[in-house]
């Protein structure tokens, strides 16, 4: 699952272009007859191999099997380590675990393995990245007291271990997405030694997934091998006996290594590299992710008084020719967005945002209706990654509306703290993505106090009500309809201007069959084709 990240791939200096064109490589790490099959994938030095500390990591996805998973063929959510996850009211959940599952060292996976892992992750002072996944759990606030005092407990009051095979979870409010949450790495189980000797566990993690950890040569590689004892093999079709995460600091170096035949899989390929790869490695080397999970937007904080008028916001939106930017600057590797959610989500309705089509005349009319704009439109953005794209957008707003636009490039960490602390000077350009496939992952940004709501601070009672009711609905069709209804209210106020849905690409050699890797390119699911 990609962790939410606002800032896309930090394009390593695009100035570093290859001078000569390399010839396409032969088979990567091809294994001869009788040898074990091996695939390698691009990785950056992990901060930790424990899934809860670095939930977006490829190693975490390969080593841990969660309670639920998305079936590669049907794309449906299915139980994996659980036999069932049920609830009558979407707030109180009953989880039954599969019988006989063990960790890779033979220790049984019990309800306790989950409960203890969840408690530790939800404890704020541990500062584990997975912490945010537990906000919906009852008792989260007690582990993270808002006044900064030391928590009086170290357990989530909403998690109850009934017996070795049964768990009960109470949430703060009904949330039908709970089973989806159970498919993310932050909710993996942990074996006993993760608590008794955490330091040793960090260097030598044991989990319950299809691959087991072999070695971590810091800054060079992480080696995994297929685990025979994996019980969820029915829905798993991963191919290679051995998986090596080769560690690169820059995607350019990984690319060069692939052209030399030393690497099988790369993900998050920058658009500039896609065209180069087409000519050097051939069309077949490109894997296009069909499910667009990310979206570029221009968000407008409510606390910027100048930009409050919805007509002004719509004028800005209509002055941007998304199609032409997508075609020229983004080389066709993105599509124009006309909704606050990407088309892959159930609640998506074509043209939900009527003011998201380019119409310079209408934009000018709206600007007039809003009483003009004398100030300067400030657009903050990540100085490292989005420079050209934001410049193109600013140029169109300037030319088509005749207003002053000023760009403010900010360092990534600085921009994040400015968003979180509501210190922005104007609109902010950013990228959003889901952790699991649900409209909630996008629309909660516009719910008072919702996930990601800090940036705009947008708040509307009817919207809150609709989003919460959609979230509580266990019927997917009803939920989608209610989410769509909420969106139709939000776009009237335009707290965010939808811009583009980027197309994600991966690169692979002949040996790596990418059919099963899903939207977020889970390398461990790749088939072995040599």
């Amino acid at each position, binding site marked *: 699952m990609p962790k939410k990240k606002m800032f896309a791939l930090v394009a*390593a200096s695009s100035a570093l272009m290859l001078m000569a064109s390399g010839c396409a490589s032969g088979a990567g790490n091809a294994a001869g007859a009788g040898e074990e099959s091996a695939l390698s994938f691009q990785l950056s030095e992990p*901060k930790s191999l424990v899934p809860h500390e670095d939930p977006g990591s490829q190693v975490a996805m390969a080593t841990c099997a969660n309670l639920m998973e998305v079936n590669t063929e049907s794309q449906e959510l299915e139980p994996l380590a659980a036999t069932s996850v049920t609830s009558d009211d979407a707030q109180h959940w009953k989880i039954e675990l599969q019988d006989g599952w063990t960790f890779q060292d033979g220790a049984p996976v019990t309800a306790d393995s989950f409960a203890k892992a969840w408690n530790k992750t939800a404890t*704020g002072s541990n*500062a584990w990245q997975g912490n945010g996944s537990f906000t919906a759990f009852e008792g989260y606030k007690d582990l*993270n007291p808002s006044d900064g005092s030391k928590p009086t407990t170290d357990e989530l009051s909403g998690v109850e271990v009934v017996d070795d095979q049964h768990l009960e979870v109470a949430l703060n409010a009904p949330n039908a997405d709970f089973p989806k949450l159970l498919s993310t790495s932050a909710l993996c189980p942990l074996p006993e030694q993760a608590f008794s000797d955490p330091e040793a566990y960090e260097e030598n993690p044991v989990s319950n997934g299809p691959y087991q950890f072999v070695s971590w040569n810091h800054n060079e590689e992480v080696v995994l091998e297929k685990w025979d004892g994996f019980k969820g093999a029915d829905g798993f079709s991963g191919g290679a006996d051995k998986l090596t995460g080769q560690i*690169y600091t820059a995607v350019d170096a990984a690319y060069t290594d692939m052209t030399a035949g*030393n690497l099988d899989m790369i993900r998050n390929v920058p658009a500039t590299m896609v065209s180069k790869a087409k000519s050097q490695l051939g069309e077949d080397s490109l894997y296009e992710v069909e499910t667009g999970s990310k979206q570029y937007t221009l968000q407008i904080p409510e606390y910027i008084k100048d930009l409050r008028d919805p007509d002004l916001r719509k004028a800005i939106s209509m002055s941007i020719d998304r199609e032409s930017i997508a075609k020229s600057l983004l080389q066709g590797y993105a599509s124009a967005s006309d909704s606050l959610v990407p088309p892959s989500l159930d609640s998506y309705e074509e043209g939900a945002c009527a003011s998201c089509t380019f119409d310079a005349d209408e934009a000018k009319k709206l600007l007039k209706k809003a009483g003009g704009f004398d100030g300067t439109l400030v657009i903050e953005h990540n100085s490292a990654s989005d420079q050209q794209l934001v410049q193109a957008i600013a140029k169109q707003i300037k030319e088509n509306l005749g207003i002053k636009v000023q760009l403010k490039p900010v360092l990534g*960490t600085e921009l*994040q703290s400015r968003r979180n602390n509501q210190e922005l000077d104007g609109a902010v350009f950013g990228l959003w993505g889901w952790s699991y496939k649900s409209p909630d992952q996008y629309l909660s940004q516009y719910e008072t106090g919702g996930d990601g709501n800090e940036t705009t601070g947008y708040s509307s009672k009817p919207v809150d009500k609709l989003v919460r009711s959609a979230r509580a609905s266990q019927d997917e069709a009803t939920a989608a309809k209610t989410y769509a209804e909420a969106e139709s209210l939000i776009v009237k106020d335009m707290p965010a201007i939808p811009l583009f849905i980027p197309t994600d690409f991966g690169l692979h050699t002949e040996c790596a069959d990418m059919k099963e890797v899903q939207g977020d390119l889970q390398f461990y699911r790749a088939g072995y084709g040599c």
Partner: protein
Amino acid sequence: MLGYTIRRIGQMIPVVIGATFLIYALTFLMPGDPIAALTGARPLPESTVAQIRQAYHLDDPFLVQYGNYMWGLLHGNFGIDFFGRPVLGLILERLPTTFALALTAWVLKLVIGLAIGVYGGLRHGRAGDHFALVFTVVFLGVPGFVIALGAQTVFGVQLGWVNPAGISAGWPMAFILPALVMAFEAAAGLARLTRTSLVGVLRSEYMRTARAKGLSPRRVIWGHALRNAMIPVVTYLGLSLAGMLGGAVIIEAIFNIPGIGGLMVTSINNKEGTIVVGIATMLVLVYLFFNLLVDLLYGVIDPRVRV
């Protein structure tokens, strides 16, 4: 000689304090919030942030933070990063790689640079000298990353003699190409310095005297000319080794070598102050050590500086 050595070491103390203070202050002033970098777009709860800030003394005034840091440093404690890993461990993990690269590059540079420089100096004004000049101008003129990417494509990808990225092949195969690129770049400067210095010495009065006394040409050149010509060269060599240890950021990125430079850049981006200051302090110490070595060598080559 002993007194001279002690004096030089004594002078290092204020330099260490001054340099770490400056680095610490600059890191402190960098924009951005380290806690924000820690968790990505989903902010940690207020309480957690407060606890982390407290644990890492982030809310203390600058001088207190610096005092804490120096106190730890005196006890050999470089602190821990925000993921709880000891900074010293992170640095030591990468230091051998950086040393291997820098030393290999430095030795290659020494051989190449001195050879070209001495050759040019002895035959100055003749065809060989001009050829050497053109050679150095090319390497000084073309940006380093162009040479690096070109070499990577030709020798790593097309010819396949070495791996184009990573150090899994170990020393020397994994280091030879990046080291050669670094060596050729740096050798150009060394060659020109050596040549100029040698030409200057060869023209001096005492060289004429030496020759007039009837010394063999070999003794004149090796015993007198080169020894004197080497004084500026030794300084340059010593400091450039220290420079190579910290300055290979671009080469490290292109050839995917997990060295100190790359760690420094990532840490600056994430505003991980303890790592930035740790590396910088380490580099200051290394730099001072080589500076000391140069000064001592100086004393050996030229007894006048010992006074």
